[in-house]
């Protein structure tokens, strides 16, 4: 039904051809997953197919795109416009920014119908309400009149899907449609896409970086690396026995869902202990201005962390897990409770005491680019903390260089600036910076969420390695249960500011007690798929 042949795209920059001999077919009612890491050209391929490339900077230089026997590249822009939204539709990654914030949901679905059909106003509205019902939006009539910011992320993605499906297109291109969503929502959306696609016989080109999602949804898989397809074939075959070394490497990097075996109760000393932590974001406003309700971010949180242990804090967005990482490090003042590091309380510490205590508890942040000052050299970034603590400058710099080799970066890295590194390397710098203080505890807030799987695996391995070698304790905040399973000895599961379940990872994963934990575990994409053990050459 749909095919591209020898499609090549040109653009300036790192490599002259962003896409090279791209041959891909999507049959009727088939879901083809296009998998690749960032920079592989997968989004570019999607835009090329829709002819939405930012021409003339990036353009198709040769090849053909066929939809039902019609060559799309030979069409005029006006003809192409009548096909977009009608016979081909697209679903994007970020449902918040992909909808026009100034128009109601109804208006935006209505626009597709207005552009491509002759239905009258009442007919269009009826159709829009019907499709909103089809994507299981509760109360379609009221959502029809809502603005995008008034509905949740999952619902916004449903609206995007409704918009794409309303004219029953032949082909849908879904560009990472579930990446920005929580796991439980992701599961629902994947199921929705699959159900509707089967009912309508639509072909889907599903772009993703997540092999879990692939295992969940794909009929066929195509693996893209640096603009070239390295392997394609039926899903079952590639997931079970990948042929190309790159595919093997990708699959090997997917964290297995088998947590480490439960360790016997540790007799190591207690390093970090939190008791009765609470944080409420106060109501704002008052006299002569608008009021906002108080938000309880964390209520009554307690946990213990022993030396050499890793405690995972898992939960979905809004569960309060990031707030936990901030109050434990006292980057955010908690309302009550205490955090003891080796018996000394961080929460009630005075300013000078706090400065000394901070040395023992360091953070690694999610976004390695945003958390490194772009105008300072790496060696300065790493040495800054010790210098503030009173270490002589040359000693601190020498130590910073040692740390770079510890996090497996070349010595030359010291004199460079953060923007000269890749995401994974930047996260290594972030880790080196935390280690420079010789902390007892490292609090890592989603440290690998912004990284590609293969890089993610390396950084996780490094963290585990360092933990064991330096007898560190890790408080590891993540939304990704696969990552938690791989690294954490114990986990606490949070929902709406409360701990719903806590215990050794192996026990929690094997025998979840709380219904929320169970639904989280059930939602992990591709949980029935056990990545094969591959030899990564």
């Amino acid at each position, binding site marked *: 039904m749909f095919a591209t042949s020898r499609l090549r795209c040109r653009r300036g920059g790192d490599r002259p051809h962003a896409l090279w001999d791209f041959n891909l077919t999507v049959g009727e009612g088939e879901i083809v997953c296009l998998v690749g890491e960032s920079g592989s050209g997968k989004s570019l391929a999607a835009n090329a197919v829709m002819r*939405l490339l930012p021409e003339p900077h990036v353009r198709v230089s040769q090849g053909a795109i066929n939809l039902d026997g019609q060559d799309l590249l030979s069409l005029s822009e006006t003809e192409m*416009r009548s096909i977009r939204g*009608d016979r081909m539709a697209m679903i*994007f990654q970020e449902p918040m*920014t*992909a*909808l026009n914030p100034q128009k109601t949901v109804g208006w935006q679905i209505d626009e597709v119908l207005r552009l491509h059909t002759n239905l009258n106003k009442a007919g269009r509205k009826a159709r829009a309400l019907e499709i909103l019902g089809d994507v299981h939006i509760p109360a379609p009539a009221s959502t029809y009149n809502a603005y995008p910011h008034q509905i949740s992320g999952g619902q916004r993605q449903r609206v995007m899907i409704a918009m794409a499906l309303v004219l029953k297109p032949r082909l849908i291109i879904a560009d990472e449609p579930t990446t920005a969503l929580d796991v439980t929502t992701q599961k629902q959306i994947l199921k929705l896409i699959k159900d509707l696609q089967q009912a309508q016989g639509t072909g889907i080109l599903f772009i993703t970086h997540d092999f879990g999602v692939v295992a969940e949804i794909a009929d066929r898989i195509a693996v893209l690396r640096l603009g070239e397809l390295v392997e394609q074939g039926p899903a079952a075959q590639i997931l079970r026995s990948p042929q190309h070394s790159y595919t093997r490497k990708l699959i090997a990097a997917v964290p297995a869902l088998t947590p480490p075996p439960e360790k016997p109760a540790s007799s190591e000393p207690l390093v970090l202990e939190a008791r009765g932590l609470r944080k409420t974001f106060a109501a704002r406003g008052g006299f002569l*201005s608008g009021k906002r309700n108080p938000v309880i971010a964390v209520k009554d949180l307690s946990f213990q962390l022993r030396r050499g242990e890793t405690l995972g804090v898992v939960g979905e967005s809004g569960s309060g897990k990031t707030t936990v990482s901030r109050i434990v490090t006292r980057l955010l003042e908690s309302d009550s409770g205490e955090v003891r590091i080796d018996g000394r309380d961080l929460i009630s510490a005075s300013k000078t005491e706090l400065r000394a205590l901070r040395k023992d508890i360091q953070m690694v942040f999610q976004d390695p680019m945003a958390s490194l000052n772009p105008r300072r050299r790496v060696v300065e970034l790493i040495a800054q903390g010790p210098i503030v603590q009173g270490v002589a400058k040359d000693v601190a710099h020498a130590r910073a260089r040692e740390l770079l080799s510890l996090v497996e970066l070349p010595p030359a890295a010291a004199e460079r600036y953060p923007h000269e590194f890749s995401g994974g390397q930047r996260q290594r710098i972030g880790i080196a910076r935390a280690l420079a203080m010789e902390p007892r505890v490292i609090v890592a807030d989603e440290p690998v969420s912004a990284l590609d799987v293969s890089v993610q695996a390396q950084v996780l391995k490094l963290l585990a390695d360092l933990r064991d070698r330096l007898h560190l304790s890790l408080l590891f905040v993540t939304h990704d249960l696969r990552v938690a399973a791989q690294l954490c000895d114990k986990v606490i599961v949070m929902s709406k500011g409360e701990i719903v379940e806590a215990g050794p990872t192996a026990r929690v994963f094997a025998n979840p007690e709380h219904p929320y934990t169970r639904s989280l575990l059930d939602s992990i994409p591709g949980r029935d798929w056990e990545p094969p053990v591959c030899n990564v050459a």
Partner: protein
Amino acid sequence: MSLLVPPLLTYTVRRMVQAIPIIILIMIGSFLLIKLAPGDTVDALVGDMGGADPAFVARLRAEYGLDQSVFVQLWRYMLKLVQLDFGWSYVYEQPVIEVLMSRLGNTLLLMVSSLVVAFTFGVALGAIAARRAYSWTDNMISTLGLVFYAMPSFFLSLLLILIFSVKLGWLPVGGIRTIGAFKTGWADVADVARHLVMPTAALSLIYLAFYMRLMRTSVLEVMDLDFVRTARAKGAGGARLMFHHVMRNALLPVVTLLGLQFSTVLGGSVVVETIFSLPGIGQLAYTSVVKRDLNTLMGIIALSSIIVVIVNVLTDLIYAWLDPRIELK
């Protein structure tokens, strides 16, 4: 309260109430600032008369209450102001409120027409420039904007007068109506409009350049956003994409600037009204400063602050209308 008051109304009323202390502070500050300047009404009057004997000057001061300490004068003035009494203008021999009201219309007309011209053309040209970014059209528009922006309004006014009144004789040099013509109805409207062409042009071009630059940047930014790509993926294009998806979103920063600049335009009108001898608030402000007509000057300041407050509230209302994410609370 279970009273059914529309939120828009409560919001507007609340904003107005919030503005009262601000206006009072402005009035106190201005009063003290003016008092810091040497010379008063009596000095100016006596200067106009060519001198008078000290006894007469002292009697005049006592009559106007200028012999009291500054704070007593301030207290007296504020007391009257609270009763909405702007006092008496000793220069015009009329209540200040009457002097103001007779001129307010002209100034508002000039300001509104200038801003409408600046906004409409600025937004349109900015959008066109962005649509054809880095092309010949864009360069033309951007260069023109730079020229407008760099030209001071007094210079532009004189240039316009030289070309259109002195050389070509198309437009009147100044004033708001043809003196002694006593036109009525549409003829009068047309006459006023003819008199306003040059002042409006002189006042609006700088702001036009502002809005144009801002709109161009803003449109370029919005065109890169995800929802514009979504709209294109839906098959929207051309004018539809531009008006419904790009321009309305791109207008937000321009509207913010519009509200902020209203007060600047009020200041700019002093120069333009003086050059074109338009009987408006700006010209009145200028003469009041020269004649040390304190009451009139304070009246102008009060009126201007009220106008600015109203415009700011209006801007917020327009903003909320344009952007549904903003809730008026």
